[in-house]
């Protein structure tokens, strides 16, 4: 029951998902629309529970166990609660505030303000650190040890130079050559890889529907 029922559901919904594409019969189309707009959407909305629940559980455990740096977990939980309260009760449209006031004189604590001035700088800066790690890795690890690696390096250099306006000062055809590398040999190799990846995804999807691939069931009976 604990495994068979989910496997049966995955089989039925999987077949339905594929059939809806091929069968233009109005009843199937109508059922498919209900499946997408009601069933999938509402269930997907609840899936947030998994993400938020796991984060909260993780940090609560850290606090309980007084793990290393546990005091920072308070920050995550408090920030989560405050942001959610502001968003849910403060409303989304600035011109139609919710029950919670989000503007005090010229100072705003609206959800979009929090997003633009806290979430965006934090996320964008965190990812911008990659520029430094990449530069350091390029310096330390990128070695032209053989013909293949040298080819990789040359292609990278040409694309890097061709991608910036400075490239055409070196040679007026350099940007066009970089574009050619991307449009012809790169397209060929990426398409070859793409066929492999797509056939892999196709096989995995089929295995999920047929109950051969069961990793998604997780552990337990």
């Amino acid at each position, binding site marked *: 029951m604990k495994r068979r029922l989910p496997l049966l559901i995955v089989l039925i919904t999987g077949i339905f998902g594929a059939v809806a594409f091929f069968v233009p019969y109005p009843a199937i189309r109508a059922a498919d629309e209900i499946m997408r707009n009601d069933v999938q959407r509402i269930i997907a909305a609840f899936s947030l529970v998994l993400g938020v629940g796991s984060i909260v559980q993780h940090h609560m455990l850290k606090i309980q166990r007084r793990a290393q740096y546990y005091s920072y977990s308070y920050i995550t939980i408090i920030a989560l609660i405050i942001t959610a309260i502001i968003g849910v009760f403060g409303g989304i449209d600035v011109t139609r505030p919710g029950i919670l006031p989000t503007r005090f004189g010229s100072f705003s604590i609206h959800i979009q303000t929090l997003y633009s001035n806290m*979430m965006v700088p934090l996320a964008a800066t965190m990812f911008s650190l990659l520029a430094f790690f990449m530069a350091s890795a390029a310096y330390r690890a990128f070695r032209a040890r053989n013909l293949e690696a040298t080819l990789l390096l040359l292609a990278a250099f040409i694309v890097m130079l061709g991608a910036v306006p400075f490239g055409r000062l070196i040679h007026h055809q350099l940007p066009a050559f970089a574009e050619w590398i991307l449009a012809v040999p790169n397209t060929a190799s990426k398409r070859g890889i793409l066929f492999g990846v797509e056939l892999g995804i196709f096989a995995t999807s089929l295995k999920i529907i047929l109950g051969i691939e069961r990793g998604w069931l997780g552990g337990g009976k």
Partner: protein
Amino acid sequence: MTLSTDPWIWIAAILTLAIFSFLYRENPFYRFAEHLYVGIANGYAITFYWHRILVPSLFDRVGSSSTPLSTKIWLIAIAIIGALYFTRFIPRISWLVRIPIAIVLGYASGASIPRAVSGEIIRQMKATIITRASFANWQSGLWAVIILIGVIATISYFFFSTERRGLLKPLSYAGIIFIMIGFGASFGYTVMARISLFIGRLQFLLGDWLGFIK
């Protein structure tokens, strides 16, 4: 230089610098900013899942007098299935979380199979095949031939079911050449991408905050 007087710009700048401090070494400012980000991001998601899915697609419809009773019961039933996600945190009945996952996963897998075959495999094969139209001019014809050879060579490189002898040997070697050029192109563009992200942050610090860039 005109320093910003907006308190929110200052908060954004301080948070930006807190994250950058990681470049020197891991420190409490970075840890604070990192934990803050996780909290805000989840709070933001809750807001929109609530306001833009649960309210219009579930609560408003169930609460509306114009919705037929059968539809209301149907929507409540779906919500109950959705709520089974909560069981993930109740060990005794945690297996029930498999039911909503099965509905989403099964439908998505089934719906994507025929579409991905058509959209990715068949269309890409069509684009690889050389036709008379490919030779509209000599250049496009030559590039089409190179792409065809490149695709076959790349695939043959990943063909491990038989020993690399005869034609397969040079073909798979040509494959590795194409793959390396492709990876080189990807690396070149990756450099551009990562640098862009840092430029974006400097544009903020030097422009919006410090006012060096107008």
